[in-house]
């Protein structure tokens, strides 16, 4: 992202200190999700919007009672939507649910096997939502041309996938991710596909502004330990990016001087 102060992470006029965004799905229970999120240091937390269970699970705590909108930036998603209209409808319900909070994660899916996004439907929905004053963080493929198009529409962040959602395969196309980052003037956040800490570091070393993940933490054998690892990986990757890595060479380059040898 072309930002005069490289170390400020800003989305829709809010400044965040953590570049790790996390989901709340797939945990054993809400308490485990909360412990992992606390350990991750994440400030932006995604949620899904679904039907309330009428007359059931009276004692089940409401997610937003545990993960409070007073403490976290809640990012409602449109997961499970396969057309623009249901995604728009979901965003409108989310905004009402969250008392006018207009930040949303837009995803319009195309295919159940890959969960790849339907770009034409996503473009259509993004345009409608931006016109309706939503602040749209958009899930997309790693196509640099499409990423730019979402920025031009007015999305506040563009979120290319590293690999399919929940696959844990890591960054499959670092060249495209780098290309998206180099051409962007909104935050670029890798969303989906991260499997372990090094994947998150690679995304950050490529210059991404942040990483959004869920399964990599929730499906780790020890989610809370992994949440801490991800926090460090994001920070390490970011610092390595800012530091600027050494050039790669085909052959060795001795670290100790040749001069002054006594042998």
């Amino acid at each position: 992202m072309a930002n005069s102060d490289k170390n400020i992470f800003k989305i829709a006029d809010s400044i965040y200190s953590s570049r790790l965004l996390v989901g709340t799905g797939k945990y054993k229970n809400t308490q485990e999700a909360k412990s992992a999120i606390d350990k991750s240091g994440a400030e932006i937390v995604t949620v899904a919007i679904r039907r309330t269970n009428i007359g059931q699970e009276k004692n089940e705590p409401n997610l937003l009672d545990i993960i409070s909108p007073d403490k976290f930036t809640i990012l409602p998603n449109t997961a499970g939507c396969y057309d623009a209209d249901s995604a728009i409808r979901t965003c409108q319900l989310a905004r009402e649910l969250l008392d006018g909070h207009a930040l949303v994660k837009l995803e319009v899916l195309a295919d159940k096997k890959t969960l790849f996004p339907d770009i034409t439907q996503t473009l259509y929905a993004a345009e409608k939502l931006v016109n309706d004053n939503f602040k749209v963080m958009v899930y997309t493929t790693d196509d640099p041309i499409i990423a730019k198009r979402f920025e031009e529409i007015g999305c506040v962040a563009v979120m290319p996938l590293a690999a399919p959602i929940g696959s844990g395969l890591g960054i499959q196309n670092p060249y495209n991710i780098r290309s998206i980052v180099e051409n962007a003037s909104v935050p670029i956040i890798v969303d989906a596909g991260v499997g372990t800490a090094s994947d998150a570091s690679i995304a950050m070393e490529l210059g991404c502004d942040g990483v959004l993940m869920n399964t990599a933490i929730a499906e780790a054998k020890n989610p809370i330990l992994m949440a801490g690892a991800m926090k460090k990986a994001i920070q390490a990757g970011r610092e390595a990016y800012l530091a600027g890595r050494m050039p790669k060479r085909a052959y060795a380059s001795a670290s100790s001087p040749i001069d002054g040898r006594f042998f």
Partner: protein
Amino acid sequence: MKVLLNGSSYSVKNNCSVDSLIKNLDLNGKYAIEINQNIIPRSQYSNKRINSGDKIEIVQAIGGG
């Protein structure tokens, strides 16, 4: 009269308001309501009347990525 509440048939009194429906359901936490795909803002819960056959959706935030 019958309405379709979150996809299931549900009985409410004639001329029932959204407010009284919510009280009957004893909902906890945050939720949002849509009737026939129109969002009902919280400020309209007491005035908005439910009609027979209305399709009502009540949604909340749950875990997701």
